[in-house]
């Protein structure tokens, strides 16, 4: 039987999971101006901090993604609260499922060498998915801001380059002349195209989903007023087609698309990081080094 202390901690975790989202909703209600008609714009700016090169803008997307991180932190704490070798709580199944699935996915796609990447993949998937799902609450999804997704893509690019450099800078540079030296400029461009394409794919999909949602919502409102305009009084103002239909569309544009993009981003991360690492060459060099060390002894 669960003790009172255990229950209280549980409740604190759950409250702390929900609180950031509630805070974001309250913030939105308090600060968002009532907009008329269609307005498609980026994140709203709360304030700017002067910094060298460019001012640091604390925007809605920054705040929301920080809140998502807090929420995920308490979700993790909640899931791992009361872990036992013999399962007592249902949430433990879920925690084990996440970890084992991530381990399996990483092992299948990246190989044994990268098995430490499971938490990173979980983090990318969770952050991307929960950020996209924020749009279900009518909040600004951080993933529809190029800066947020761009940061992740640049981190992935650093990782790719780090593993490519594992066999030395000369081997890395030689890789650009494959298969023929003539293609070096194109290879160079494709190197930088990777993070750009990753960022734009994710950001574009989520943003386009929200844009289409807004457009369809407005269009359905127009349609219902067009159909019902001959009715007298307030009956003409009933937004008939705005009932239910946007929710169904939101299942695709917010839930499905968001989760799919999170999965795609994680898969691409795994593919690029493990694909960029010349594991055969790396093993060969390490073997050589070990032999040399053995000979010197």
């Amino acid at each position, binding site marked *: 039987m669960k003790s009172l202390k255990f229950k209280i901690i549980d409740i604190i975790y759950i409250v702390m999971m929900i609180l950031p989202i509630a805070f974001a909703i309250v913030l939105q209600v308090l600060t968002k101006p009532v907009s008329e008609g269609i307005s498609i714009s*980026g994140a709203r700016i709360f304030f700017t901090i002067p910094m060298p090169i460019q001012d640091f803008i604390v925007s809605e997307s920054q705040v929301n993604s920080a809140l998502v991180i807090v929420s995920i*932190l308490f979700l*993790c704490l909640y899931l791992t609260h009361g872990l036992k070798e013999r399962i007592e709580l249902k949430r433990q199944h879920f925690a084990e499922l996440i*970890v084992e699935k991530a381990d399996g996915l990483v092992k299948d796609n990246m190989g044994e060498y990268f098995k430490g990447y499971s938490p990173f993949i979980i983090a990318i998937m969770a952050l991307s998915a929960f950020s996209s799902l924020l749009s279900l609450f009518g909040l600004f999804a951080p993933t529809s801001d190029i*800066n947020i997704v761009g*940061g992740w893509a640049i981190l992935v690019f650093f990782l790719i380059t780090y593993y490519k450099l594992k066999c030395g800078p000369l081997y890395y540079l030689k890789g650009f002349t494959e298969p023929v030296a003539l293609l070096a400029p194109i290879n160079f461009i494709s190197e930088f195209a990777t993070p750009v394409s990753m960022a734009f794919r994710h950001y574009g999909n989520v943003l386009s989903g929200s844009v289409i949602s807004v457009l369809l919502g407005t269009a359905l409102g127009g349609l219902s007023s067009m159909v019902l305009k001959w009715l007298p009084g307030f009956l003409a103002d009933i937004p008939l087609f705005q009932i239910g239909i946007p929710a169904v569309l939101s299942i695709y544009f917010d839930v499905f698309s968001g989760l799919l993009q999170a999965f795609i981003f994680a898969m691409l991360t795994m593919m690029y990081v493990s694909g960029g690492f010349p594991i055969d060459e790396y093993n060969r060099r390490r073997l050589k080094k070990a032999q040399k060390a053995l000979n010197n002894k």
Partner: protein
Amino acid sequence: MQSLDVISINIWQIVVSLINLVLLFLIVKRFLYKPVKKMLENRQNEVEKRYSDAEKANNEALENKKNYEEKLSAASVEADGIIQSAVDTAKAREKEIVSDAKLKAEGIILKAENDAKLAMLKAEDSIKQEIIDVSTVLAEKMLKREISEQDHKDLIDSFIDNIGDGDE
């Protein structure tokens, strides 16, 4: 309130977002991945321990069974031996008794024979005596002759001895 453009790149936002992802990676690793992995490892260890314990117990039981079976078979052999030796002793005893009895019986028979012989001799003697007595009386009466009793006795004795010899 101002809004950003749909596409607006801000380096510091990018850096913060990158740091955020690293932070979340550390959070997930520390608060979700490691505890679960540790727990799974513990569970694996426990399961392996259980298995090895079970195997040990099984082996012990098998060994015990083998021991008992060995003991059992040894006991039956021993029992067989005891019975065999008992039977042997009994047979030996039987033989002894029978031979004793035979001996005794032979002794009895011999004694009886001797007794019979003795009785016969005695009877012979007494018959002789009687015959002597009778014949002496008869002779005294018939012959009316004075004969010394001793002479007569000797005479009769020799006579009867002769008869006895002829009989035997």
